[in-house]
């Protein structure tokens, strides 16, 4: 539909395999840079489609507020190690649609790293948080049209355990491994499992308790002011 978007997609279909080919040919630890480059290229279509939609002031403000809420939710320290960030991102995805969910997640990850510290994990965090928001936007309305509390909680838990957590662990895998092998991957993912379980539990619990109240508030604002209405169909 959009010329810029079309050109970008075309460029990526050439660029992605090229990066992969070049990365697999180079010896040594190039796979770390290759993986990061692939990840960044993978995020470009999301960002570009957001840009090319020419978002209105209300869309921009809502996404910024939800990203900031997701980061600030970390300071509602109820239990040590409790991270409800992803819960807010998923709510954003469900209420505003997959694309806005991705942007919310990615911006939340990037912005929170400006407050803590940037590191080799930044692009991976952006991708995993973004994917969480995106998947929530795609799957929840189709799988659970009723959006009951336990359904949201279940989705949050499973999504963290199968997508968000493993993508974060992949960042560890690429940074610490001496070569890409099955045993390395198994070790890293096994070591990450307790953290992912705890993370998933925290997100599920937050969605169970606060999911419906937040959703109804967002829904009300969306219906009242018509924010991001094009995005949802």
């Amino acid at each position, binding site marked *: 539909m959009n010329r810029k978007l079309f050109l970008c997609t075309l460029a990526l279909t050439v660029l992605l395999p090229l990066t992969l080919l070049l990365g697999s040919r180079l010896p040594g630890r190039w796979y770390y840079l290759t993986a990061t480059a692939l990840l960044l290229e993978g995020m470009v279509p999301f*960002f570009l489609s957001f840009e090319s939609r020419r978002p209105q002031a*209300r869309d921009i*403000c809502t996404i910024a507020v939800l990203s900031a809420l997701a980061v*600030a939710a970390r300071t509602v320290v109820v239990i040590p190690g409790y991270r409800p960030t992803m819960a807010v991102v998923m709510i954003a995805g469900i209420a505003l649609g997959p694309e806005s969910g991705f942007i919310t997640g990615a911006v939340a990850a990037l*912005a929170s790293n400006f407050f803590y510290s940037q590191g080799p994990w930044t692009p991976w965090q952006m991708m995993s948080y973004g994917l969480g928001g995106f998947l929530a936007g795609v799957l929840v309305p189709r799988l659970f049209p009723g959006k009951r509390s336990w359904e949201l909680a279940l989705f949050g838990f499973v999504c963290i355990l199968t997508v968000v957590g493993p993508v974060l662990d992949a960042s560890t895998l690429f940074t*610490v491994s001496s070569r890409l092998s099955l045993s390395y991957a198994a070790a890293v993912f096994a070591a990450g499992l307790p953290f992912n379980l705890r993370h998933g539990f925290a997100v599920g*619990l937050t969605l169970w308790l606060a999911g419906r109240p937040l959703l109804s508030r967002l829904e009300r604002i969306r219906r009242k002011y018509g924010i991001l209405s094009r995005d949802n169909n």
Partner: protein
Amino acid sequence: MERDVFSRCHPLTGFVYFFCAICFCAVVRHPMYLAAGFLAGLFYFLLLHGEAGMKKLPGMVPFLLVVAALNPVLNPRGETVLFTLFGRPYTLEALVYGVVLAGMLGTMLVWFGCFSTVLTGEKIVYLFAPIAPALSLVLVMTMRLIPSFQRKLARLAGARRCIGFGLEEQTRWRGKLRCGAALLASLTDWALEGSIITADAMRARGYGTGKRTHYRAYRLSARDGMLLGLTLGLSTAAVTFGGMQAEFLPSVSMERPGWGLAVYCLLLALPVLAWGKEELQWRWCIRRI
């Protein structure tokens, strides 16, 4: 901070420099290069952070030790067997490689620490605003809202404490979680209302009606040109001189570093050298008064 040349430069200069430095640190495995990169990064990190930086560093040591010790467990190749663990050989070469890996990781973390301090959020936004105006705006608004929300959360928690619903008074997890959820919900209400007001103000002032311009806080100066030229020139020279190949498995072998190492050291010590030059110049100026 104030004396750091890259902090005062155009964001592009800093971004290109850190991009080159971190890419080298992520890829080069030669121990001598690694040591040079780590020392240069550490020195820069301490210059930037001072006393506080000293306290941040020990936290990453246990993690690095685990990475170093773990490599031989998962990677059984190598010629010199030290002992067998779980029926698999634990080799010296793999251990050496593990130490190198941990060193690379430590180097990257130190350099990323410098990156975070030098290229702050507003500089990154400034850099990407012409390419992605809407996204940069979202990012900059998010970064402004986070501290504001944290303050609001503290106020909300205080208000709830006054009516006997404080987080601290809840002894059971259930109560704590309910309390947290209530805080989050009321913050959301307040924040969404605020967002509509902001959006209406933006629209009233004509957001989206024309091309978005932005204030040019930085200009590319001759110094930026020189630093950019040095960064790119030294990077290219380091790659062409080579001598940074090293293999660890199955046996340790590495190239003899020649001029490449000198160029590499110069590249990574660039911020520290620039800092020293400024410092000397300043001292010299003061003495002349």
